[in-house]
């Protein structure tokens, strides 16, 4: 066991921490700050922030230098995740592009795609959306019905995607499309890279139970995309999608822990404020959450070790997803249980605003559904990790 980072990594932490301290406005650290902004204001601030961060050399930490990255280690990426959360930096607006699309392009993209896509994405000049889920294809991606028909050297795309993060701000979308008419399930799909700034593409916000709209819907009506704007081969979209999803490495666990642990502390502070922190039952419930959050932290160190040793994580990411999503949801269940009637009020006192808590609370219901529901993840753990029969 050696839970320290290298001297070089710690040096990186100092540089990053210093830069963050100088560049994060104090108001960003106020709880609920981002909720006070309009969606557009929030987006523009975050895009501008991302450009500054990239210019300072703090984007693409683990990416090769040739792609504009820093060429850092997995440890540096973990430090980056931890320090940005600690400093209250906002999450990148290009999260799905950076996490999933970029490494897939580096792995199997054409030279043109590498040259044209990665740089602008890193600088947030082009915001990428993901178009996987459909109303009839949620947990079951293979049920995709959006279809593309070849017309000369272009595909004409029709259909609907849902649960698209940042749909209202997207410039381009990587999309699973059924390009072979009459094909079924995993066959005949292609991963098309579609320009969203065209008449055939319409994005609509999808209002959630919290009232916010992190997600949107994207409608394709005779949208056009060049047949060469396909990632991987035409007809091999399922394989491309599986490769892409494999970059969900779980190595962001250190950052997640840092964020959730802060939320735990925030909830404890509210429990104290409302006289609930001495209640033995409330203490049990919150401590139960802390146990799971600490385990998430240990698990992140385990995953980081595997990544540093170049081991294939395989289906372990299902375990990571289960642990963080269930722990996060349980933490917000605890918020409600512990605060009692006060938890349900935006203004239990004139001087208290619990709206940001409600936003997290209601958001927590979604995390066990998207990105593979807890039910799907349990299937994967049972079948691929434990080897139980289908």
């Amino acid at each position, binding site marked *: 066991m050696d839970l320290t980072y290298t001297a070089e990594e710690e040096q990186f932490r100092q540089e990053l921490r210093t830069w963050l301290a100088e560049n994060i406005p104090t108001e960003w650290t106020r709880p609920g700050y981002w909720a006070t902004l309009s969606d557009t204001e929030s987006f523009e601030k975050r895009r501008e922030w991302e450009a500054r961060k990239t210019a300072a050399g703090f984007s693409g930490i683990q990416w090769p230098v040739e792609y504009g990255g820093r060429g850092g280690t997995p440890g540096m990426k973990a430090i980056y995740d931890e320090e940005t959360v600690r400093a209250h930096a906002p999450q990148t607006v290009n999260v799905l592009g950076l996490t999933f699309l970029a490494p897939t392009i580096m792995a199997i993209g054409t030279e043109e795609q590498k040259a044209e896509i990665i740089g602008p994405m890193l600088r947030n000049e082009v915001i990428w959306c993901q178009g996987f889920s459909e109303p*009839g294809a949620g947990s079951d991606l293979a049920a995709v019905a959006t279809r593309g028909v070849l017309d000369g050297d272009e595909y004409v795309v029709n259909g609907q995607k849902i649960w698209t993060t940042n749909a209202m701000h997207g410039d381009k979308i990587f999309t699973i499309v059924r390009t072979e008419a009459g094909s079924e399930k995993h066959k005949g799909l292609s991963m098309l890279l579609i320009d969203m700034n065209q008449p055939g593409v319409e994005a609509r916000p999808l209002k959630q139970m919290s009232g916010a709209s992190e997600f949107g819907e994207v409608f394709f009506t005779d949208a056009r995309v060049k047949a060469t704007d396909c990632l991987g081969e035409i007809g091999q979209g399922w394989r491309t999608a599986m490769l892409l999803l494999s970059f969900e490495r779980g190595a962001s666990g250190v950052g997640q822990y840092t964020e959730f642990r802060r939320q735990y502390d925030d909830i404890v502070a509210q429990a104290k404020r409302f006289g609930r922190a001495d209640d033995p039952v409330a203490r049990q419930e919150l401590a139960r959450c802390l146990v799971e959050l600490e385990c998430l932290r240990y698990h992140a160190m385990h995953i980081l070790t595997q990544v540093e040793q170049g081991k294939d994580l395989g289906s372990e990411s299902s375990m990571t997803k289960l642990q963080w999503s269930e722990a996060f949801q349980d933490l917000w269940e605890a918020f409600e249980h512990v605060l009692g009637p006060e938890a349900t009020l935006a203004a239990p006192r004139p001087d208290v605003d619990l709206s940001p808590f*409600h936003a997290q609370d209601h958001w927590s219901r979604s995390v066990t559904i998207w990105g593979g529901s807890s039910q799907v993840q349990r299937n994967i753990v049972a079948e691929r990790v434990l080897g139980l029969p289908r």
Partner: protein
Amino acid sequence: MFFALTDEQQAFASTVTEFLADRFDLEAVRGVVEDPDGDGHPLTLWKGLADQGALAVLVPEEHDGLGLGLVDAQVVARALGAGVAPGPWLATVLAAEALRIAGSAEQQSRWLPALAAGETVGTVALRGEGGAWDGSGITVDVNDGRLNGSASPVDYPAVAGLIVVAATDASGTPGLYLVEAGASGLTVRDQHTYDGTARVGALEFADTPAEPLASGDTVAVQALLARGAVLNAADLVGVAREALTRTVAYDRDRNQFGVPVGSFQALKHALADLHVAVTMAEHAVLFAAHALDTDDPGTAIAVAVAGSKASDAAWNATGAMIQFFGGIGFTWEHEAHFFYKRARRRAPLFGSSAEHREALAALTF
């Protein structure tokens, strides 16, 4: 042995349920939810409930009521929960119960007919911020007929004409007091609950004049809290049953991986466990209502069991509703969040599940 609703009670349940389906369906509920600055008290609904006797159910016949019991009242509460209906029904019924239990003949004559007819909206203020629901959590004092302090959360204070307030006198004894809307020194502040099917506020009293209920002593405070716990549990049971029924219906039809989602055993078992839990909660509410009606020696246990079981069942059934609708149940346009938020707001009222369990330990250890 007859542990069931009578034909009349079942007919009453159907009447209220059908009225809601016809005249105040989920679209109407949505109208209230999407108007958070409105008073949350649609008069069509209110008048309809009054017409059906839903407000008069517990009021004695000599005061123009139906003179029925809590078993009948829980029928209404369940139907309102199942319909996620907004409005101050529970608040008004409890205010009337306070008068029935503890009011003088004159107080009853003055208020009960108006409450039973829906002409006056009532509410109750029985607890202060962060306090317990057993009389110990009162943060209003009374001296020389004047109230000082605060109460929170209070249902529908902005539309209530009459407020029944629990206050502690100089000797430390809790009692019940009547305050009329607009009384001097009374301030109402909206607390903005996320449950759009309700409106909730805090009350501040500054030398507010109040009239004591004739026998509004500690016993009456406890009796009122017990009735609140059972009727609130009935609402939660209605929410739970409807959430479960809608989830089952959806998962029976929705296909994923080429088969109905409801054919996956993990879902089936979760829904089966919820069905057992909701059924037990229904039994518990029925028993507790009957125990209060008949002054059963086991009433305190029965109330705590109902309060605990109903709030856990509603909590779990509405959480499962969102999970098992899979995505769509998380959208604003879908109705799942009405049920979810109502369950969570109501679960801790009149005693959380844990508070009820502690009461059970105290009663049986």
